[in-house]
């Protein structure tokens, strides 16, 4: 009798230890705490020309602080844009309606995330609203080809520069006809990045 009691206690401790480990793995090691928190909050939508390698559940941050997560990414076959749903945590309910959404990269090779920079409007975004001002992800090839293109135009004095422009030149006009095709359908503010090829500054795209 005594031994069976000891045995049952041992088994009880073992099961408790195993379940505690599972709990630890769920809460401390994995993202369960964040995922379940996603159910609350409100959803806003943003349209991008190009989302790069943005993934579902990527961070949405404002001033570097996490305010929500990407809840879905879809393709709109009418306007050829990516439609990104952002789930914003309920306590951040004072985001101005003219906020800009930008796809940024953490570090040099890090994950991509959506950065929000607040506007100046006095009314706030709420469930189902749309962010009009967006800026697409930087695609490395486009950045490099734009850089080479502008180099080839401006700096013809370089010795190697004479042979180089032959290659980027057929590449660079390529985005140009692609954009006007979709530009009238989309918001004019969206066009920014791919539309103005030689202009490296992203600030011009917003306003």
């Amino acid at each position, binding site marked *: 009798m005594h031994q069976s009691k000891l045995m049952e206690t041992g088994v009880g401790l*073992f*099961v408790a*230890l*195993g379940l505690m*480990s*599972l709990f630890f*793995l769920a809460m401390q*090691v994995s993202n369960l705490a964040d995922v379940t928190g996603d159910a609350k909050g409100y959803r806003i939508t943003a349209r991008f020309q190009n989302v790069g390698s943005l993934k579902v559940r990527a961070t949405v941050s404002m001033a570097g602080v996490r305010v929500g997560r990407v809840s879905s990414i879809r393709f709109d076959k009418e306007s050829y844009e990516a439609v990104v749903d952002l789930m914003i945590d309920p306590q951040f309910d004072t985001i101005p309606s003219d906020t800009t959404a930008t796809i940024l990269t953490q570090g040099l090779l890090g994950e991509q995330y959506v950065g929000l920079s607040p506007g100046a409007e006095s009314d706030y975004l709420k469930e189902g609203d749309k962010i009009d001002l967006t800026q697409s992800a930087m695609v490395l090839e486009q950045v490099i080809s734009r850089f080479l293109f502008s180099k080839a135009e401006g700096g013809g004095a370089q010795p190697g520069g004479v042979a180089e422009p032959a290659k980027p030149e057929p590449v660079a006009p390529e985005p140009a006809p692609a954009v006007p095709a979709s530009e009238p359908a989309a918001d004019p503010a969206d066009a920014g990045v791919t539309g103005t090829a030689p202009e490296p500054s992203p600030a011009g795209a917003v306003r």
Partner: protein
Amino acid sequence: MADPFQRLGRFTLGALQKLGRALFFMAHVWLGTVDLVLRPRLVISQMFFLGVMSVLIVAVSGLFVGMVLGLQGYNVLSDFGAEQTLGVMVAASLVRELGPVVTALLFSGRAGSALTAEIGLMKTTEQLAGMEMMAVDPLRRVVAPRFFAGVASMPLLAALFSMVGVMGGYFVGVGLLGVDEGAFWSQMTAKIDFYDDVVNGVIKSAVFGVIVTWIAVYEGYDAVPTAEGVSRATTRSVVYSAFAVLGSDFVLTALMFGDH
């Protein structure tokens, strides 16, 4: 004297017969669930011998595996200046692969071999036949509690292994090598997904639990009832378990993580 085709044929037929017997055996064991609901004490005492007694070896192995992962991972990652992802590396490799697989291999060595030897010896000393004489079904009374106790213990042991391993990686990475503590945990939480990683790891360990315990009880029940037969059955139990665990791990990994 027999030509190679005859031998190949005999081997194949023998393997198929054994598989068929093992399947019927399993179906018979599942009938025993009814008795176990009525007498849960049988399972509890077996969980003590299979699960509780394996806690020490599993926890100590997990600690050292996690510490080694921390050291080796740090060496490689620091070359790229990415020491802060050490937590992700340690946790992902433990939760997805090493936790279930190494625990299953340890479990087959620690508990599976003991199961095979025990049941084999019961058969050799005609205890199982004696039970049948008394109209007690040995598959329900002896095998079923052991099987279900093993199946229930494996996921718990694998979770324990992963947790202790993560702590071991934490001690080495943060304590000895000076990785930033906040980055260690926050990167881990950001990259390890509950459903993709933790739940799949638990499913894996449950499947391995069924495989290892099934092989162990079947080899014991099917053993040739001599001292040599029991010793061979014990060896086969561990060897087949290792093959089956590693082979099915590949299949499960391909199913779970293959489409990423």
